[in-house]
């Protein structure tokens, strides 16, 4: 047990001695330097351990033999120890990172670094205000001087601006301290109380507080900080952004008790505003370090806000929120700054060098996901609890601002991420040199983020281990990533089936039904991925993560578990989509919409009353009466995932640009997660119907989605995009049927979900096969492939019949159920629109089968073969499924009937194979037999009585007595429904796309105009600070 004062004295002493030590060689001085830093970490680490786990009481260190207030006292409690441990560790790792630099530069660098650590340590521990000033000046001066380690014009000018700003802030601080002393006759925080102040005295408190607050870089008085972040060497910047910020943040925490509530409120709001605007401005940023700077400033703002707004919460929760944000932000930020130093690229577009550098990419990814607050990292939990807290406190405006700011942050961070992975190919690739001294600290920090997230998941929430499975899957698959992809694929298939077996004893049939869609559907689709060659590094990990998250949605018990799985699903699907060749924009769109949806859901869940029973969410939610706002928010969140009209624009991009064997998962299964969620909302809704009928409007949205999706699909040239829009349209039907809130409606929604899973999987896999052979998705470049890929053709044929709803296949059952339910409900016009949509669906269905398989075979495809067997197998499994439920609709109708009966009175009668509703009847079995009969009779007749038949080739056509010129000019495929587009006129314009495009443009221009504040002129920055102080002064109403 070492007296903590040594962490000050040792560093200080070493700092002075280093000049002498250096005379006998840099090696020795470096040894001493790192020795001292490690010792600091060790000492404080021990203290942290004692204070936290052994419940050692808080240590008060009195200097000069007197106790406070007569002398200066230092305090080391758990909080101090935590911050100090963190700061010293970061300082040590930063020093390791700077190893090369320290080896070469003047010894003053090392000295300054140690002095800076003294400043930080002192600042955190001291309880004396003037002492605080001294330590902060020590910290600042050493930091200013450290900046000169890189003597470029940029860093020097940034440093100068920093000094001026810092000087002004410290002047305020000093004035504040002086006046506090004047009014209270005391400088020790423990002896200053709010009650001691006269009205005038509040000014002194204000000066003190605003000085600290300005050091925390509030918007807009923070231009100087951005310049420093951009210009200074990454190693130093990580110290400034992390260690210094942590210390100053802690100072703020320390003085908080003496601040009046109205100050705190203003600062809290100012923090939120900072968070919002810096993230908004980050949108326009192209420079990596400055981008991190914006993010850093924003996060500190959030940190301050979270601290202020959670003061009244129970300690453990407050630690989770503030600690979560603190840790998450600072560690991730340090790591990312280090990575910028390793990559050494300023422009985000040049970051695609990371592509070839897997270890660095993984670190980058981990830190970025942590920074953006995705699970399982600490920021996620903090955000969840924070939002929940704010919502309970009815601070909706703050919640909205924070979430919007977070969204902006996600956008610019992940734009960076996606550009790194999928950036433009043109830039040259030089391998990045991975120096051990730089990689080591980064790796440690990435490790710590993961460790912390594990700890939170284990100790704070105590989740069922199933909920860690998605992450474990990624880790395990990454360990065995050296295996060929086939083996990994088979293992994954086994894993999915085992997982299905594990969760099999489900509580209810509705879970079982979605379990079949999620797990069995995925398992069959995995067969399609077995066609992969090579290693497909990382692919199966993400795939398993996604599938397990689907499953976990079913067994989630609390809102948080559900939301966690939801976020895991989003992350994994985002990364899977990003694996596509040109998927940068597509995956971004997907992520933006998903994140926005997730935030809405977060608020929605926070609004929802607590669950009363301990069964799975889908069951227990029926006992919960969701408020209207929660219903709306949750519904929007789920409808974003299911691609409803208005928020659908991510869908075609993501489906089309994902790798072709991933698309079936995204389309056939992922969208069903949204359906599942919506059904969940519906279950609560029917039990506790509010006065305002939300589902009526959801029904309309679903119906319009169906028609718009169908039209959009008809006008596509890209096969996968067409199928994507088709999915949108089909899910529109499902959403509308859920919204009916009747037995028949839910029956049809589930029936169609099941059907859609099968036929859309098969169609996407068929297109994957075609793409695999022809290397194109553009339909007019294909044609006549029926001759080369008959098995794929048959599969597509059956599936499009199933989609279109033509009897005798199962699609008709869906149509029959849907129309019956709509008429029964009295939604006549909606039913009319759906009829229209189902007519339009013929357009795209014919288009996809004709332009790919029929018509003229192109020269370049004369030698293509049938799709690989791995693509054929799943398709035919699905065909068997479709045929079975077409022939024997009871197989599916009966169980679904019983599921729906749980919520509504049954409205159908099943008699043999005849299913009757109040409106009509349908006997799928008989229809099948009649159809077979009427099909076989003419077939036999034709086979018997046809004359001599000659099979001819593709150009043996009557061509107005000429011969066709080339297959390209003879194949009708491009812009096939031009006349329809013409007929639609203005209705055919992509208005929703335009709308979102405008939103994006506007927010970017807004960001651009706001950031003009930062003119780069140091004097402007001073003006900002002074104006800021004045404005805050008036707002806080001292």
């Amino acid at each position, binding site marked *: 047990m070492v007296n903590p004062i040594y962490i000050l004295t040792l560093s200080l002493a070493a700092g002075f001695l280093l000049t002498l030590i250096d005379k006998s060689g840099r090696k020795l001085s470096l040894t001493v330097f790192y020795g001292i830093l490690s010792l600091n970490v060790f000492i404080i680490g021990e203290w942290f351990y004692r204070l936290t786990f052994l419940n050692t009481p808080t240590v008060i260190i009195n200097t000069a033999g007197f106790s406070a207030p007569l002398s200066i006292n230092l305090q080391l409690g758990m909080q101090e120890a935590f911050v100090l441990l963190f700061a010293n560790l970061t300082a040590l790792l930063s020093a390791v990172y700077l190893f090369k630099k320290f080896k070469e530069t003047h010894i003053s660098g090392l000295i300054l670094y140690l002095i800076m650590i003294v400043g930080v340590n002192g600042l955190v521990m001291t309880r004396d205000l003037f002492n605080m000033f001294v330590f902060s000046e020590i910290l600042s001066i050493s930091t200013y001087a450290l900046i000169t380690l890189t003597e470029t014009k940029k860093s020097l000018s940034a440093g100068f601006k920093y000094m001026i700003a810092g000087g002004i802030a410290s002047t305020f601080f000093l004035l504040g301290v002086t006046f506090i002393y004047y009014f209270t006759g005391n400088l020790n925080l423990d002896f200053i109380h709010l009650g001691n102040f006269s009205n005038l005295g509040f000014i002194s408190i204000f000066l003190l507080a605003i000085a600290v607050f300005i050091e925390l870089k509030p918007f807009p008085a923070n231009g100087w900080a951005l310049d420093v972040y951009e210009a200074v060497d990454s190693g130093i910047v990580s110290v400034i952004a992390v260690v210094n910020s942590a210390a100053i943040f802690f100072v703020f925490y320390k003085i908080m008790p003496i601040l009046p509530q109205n100050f705190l409120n203003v600062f809290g709001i100012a923090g939120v505003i900072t968070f919002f605007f810096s993230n908004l401005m980050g949108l326009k940023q192209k420079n990596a370090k400055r981008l991190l700077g914006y993010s850093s400033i924003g996060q500190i703002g959030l940190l301050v806000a979270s601290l202020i707004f959670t003061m009244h919460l129970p300690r453990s929760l407050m630690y989770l929120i503030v600690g979560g944000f603190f840790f998450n932000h600072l560690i991730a930020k340090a790591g990312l700054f280090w990575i910028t130093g390793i990559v050494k690229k300023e422009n985000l577009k040049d970051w695609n060098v990371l592509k070839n550098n897997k270890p660095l990419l993984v670190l980058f990814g981990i830190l970025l996901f942590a920074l953006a607050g995705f699970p399982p990292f600490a920021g996620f939990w903090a955000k969840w609890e924070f939002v929940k807290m704010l919502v309970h406190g009815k601070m909706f405006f703050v919640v909205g601002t924070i979430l919007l700011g977070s969204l902006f942050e996600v956008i610019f961070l992940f734009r960076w991420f996606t550009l790194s992975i999928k950036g433009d190919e043109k830039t040259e690739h030089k391998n990045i040199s991975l120096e051990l001294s730089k990689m080591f600290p980064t790796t440690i920090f990435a490790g710590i983020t993961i460790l912390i997230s594990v700890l939170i998941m284990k100790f704070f929430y105590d989740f069922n281990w199933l909920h860690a499975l998605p992450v474990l899957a990624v880790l395990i698959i990454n360990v065995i990533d050296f295996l060929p992809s086939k083996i990994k694929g088979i293992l994954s298939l086994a894993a999915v089936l085992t997982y299905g077996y594990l969760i099999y004893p489900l509580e209810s049939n509705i879970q079982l039904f979605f379990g079949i869609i999620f797990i069995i559907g995925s398992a069959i689709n995995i067969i399609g991925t077995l066609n992969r060659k090579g290693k497909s590094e990382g692919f199966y990990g993400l795939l398993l993560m996604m599938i397990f998250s689907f499953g976990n949605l079913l067994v989630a018990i609390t809102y948080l578990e559900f939301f966690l799985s939801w976020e895991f699903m989003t992350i994994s699907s985002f990364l899977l989509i990003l694996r596509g060749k040109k998927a940068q924009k597509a995956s971004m769109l997907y992520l933006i919409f998903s994140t926005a949806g997730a935030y809405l859901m977060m608020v929605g869940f926070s609004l929802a009353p607590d669950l009363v029973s301990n069964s799975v969410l889908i069951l227990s939610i029926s006992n919960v009466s969701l408020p209207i706002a929660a219903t709306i928010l949750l519904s929007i969140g789920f409808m974003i995932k299911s691609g409803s009209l208005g928020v659908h624009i991510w869908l075609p991009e993501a489906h089309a640009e994902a790798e072709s064997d991933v698309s079936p998962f995204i389309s056939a299964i992922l969208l069903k997660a949204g359906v599942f969620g919506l059904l969940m909302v519906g279950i609560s809704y029917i039990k506790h119907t509010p006065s305002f009928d939300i589902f009526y409007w959801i029904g309309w949205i679903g119906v319009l989605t169906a028609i718009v999706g169908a039209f959009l699909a008809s006008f596509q040239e890209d096969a996968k995009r067409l199928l994507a829009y088709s999915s949108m349209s089909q899910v529109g039907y499902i959403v509308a049927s859920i919204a009916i809130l009747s037995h028949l409606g839910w029956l049809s929604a589930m029936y169609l979900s099941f059907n859609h899973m099968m036929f859309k999987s098969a169609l996407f896999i068929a297109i994957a096969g075609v793409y695999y052979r022809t290397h194109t998705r553009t339909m007019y470049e294909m044609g006549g492939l029926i001759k080369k890929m008959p098995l794929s053709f048959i599969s597509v044929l059956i599936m499009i019949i199933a989609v279109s709803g033509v009897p005798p296949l199962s699609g008709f059952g869906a149509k029959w159920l849907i129309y019956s339910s709509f008429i029964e409900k009295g939604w006549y016009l909606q039913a009319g629109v759906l009829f229209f949509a189902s007519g339009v669906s013929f357009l795209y269905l014919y288009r996809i089968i004709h332009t790919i398989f029929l018509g003229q075979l192109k020269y370049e495809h004369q030698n293509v073969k049938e799709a690989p067997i791995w693509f054929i197998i799943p398709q035919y499994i699905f065909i068997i499924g479709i045929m079975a439920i077409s022939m024997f609709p009871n197989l599916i109708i009966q169980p679904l009937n019983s599921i729906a009966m749980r919520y509504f009175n049954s409205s159908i009668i099943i008699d043999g194979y005849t299913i009757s509703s109040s409106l009509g009847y349908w006997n799928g079995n008989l229809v099948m037999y009649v159809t077979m009969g009427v099909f076989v009779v003419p077939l036999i007749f034709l086979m018997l009585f046809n004359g001599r038949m000659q099979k001819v080739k593709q150009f*043996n056509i009557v061509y107005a*007595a000429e*011969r066709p010129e080339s297959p390209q000019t003879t194949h009708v495929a491009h812009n096939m429904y031009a006349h329809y587009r013409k007929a639609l006129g203005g209705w055919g314009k992509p208005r929703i796309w335009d709308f979102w495009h405008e939103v994006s443009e506007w927010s970017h221009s807004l960001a651009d105009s706001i950031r003009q504040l930062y003119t780069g002129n140091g004097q402007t920055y001073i003006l900002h600070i002074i104006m800021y102080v004045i404005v805050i002064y008036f707002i806080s109403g001292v």
Partner: protein
Amino acid sequence: MDKKDIKEIEKQMKLANEGLPEKERILFSDVRPTTVAPLNKYLENFLNWARARSLWIIGYGTGCGAMELRPLMTSRFDMSRFGIAPRPTPRQSSVFVIGGYASIKTIKRIVRSYEQMQGPKFVIALGSCTINGGMYYDSYNTINRLDYYIPVDIYIAGCMPRPEALIAGFNKLKEKIQTGECEGMNKYAENFDWYKKNQKQIIKDWNMPDYNW
């Protein structure tokens, strides 16, 4: 004959399609047309009866004589009362009306369209030009005698033959069909090489397969 010989013969039976560039040959069928024997007498008679009453003309006005088909179609002469109807595609028609002179360019199209008709198929040639060249007998650009190139069932003389003459010709064709004399399709298949030789003699830019299925 062993299997090898059969294959060899089959190969010889294939058309060479030399007029086509190498890469286009896979796009066209290279099967040689064959003769198809009529069915048994009664059935064939019945079918011939129907064929004679349902004459579908290919809608291709090859020469100036096609002008005389218009009045035949419209209300003055109304060919539909004889079961004659125009048809827009050779795949579905049974009568090819060659409307007068056939230039070399046109004869290429005539051959293509004729070959694309499904047998039994019949040809009516209008005007003197198709019989002996008529007023174009010494033209560098027209053929003189149509039945060197495709089998003709009925010639209708005149320059131009009036619709009445056309009706008479059609009636004659009906009679011939009913008696089973119109076997142009088989004749063409039997003498396929001879017809091809004649055709290729005058059509120089032969950019189509030897038989247009």
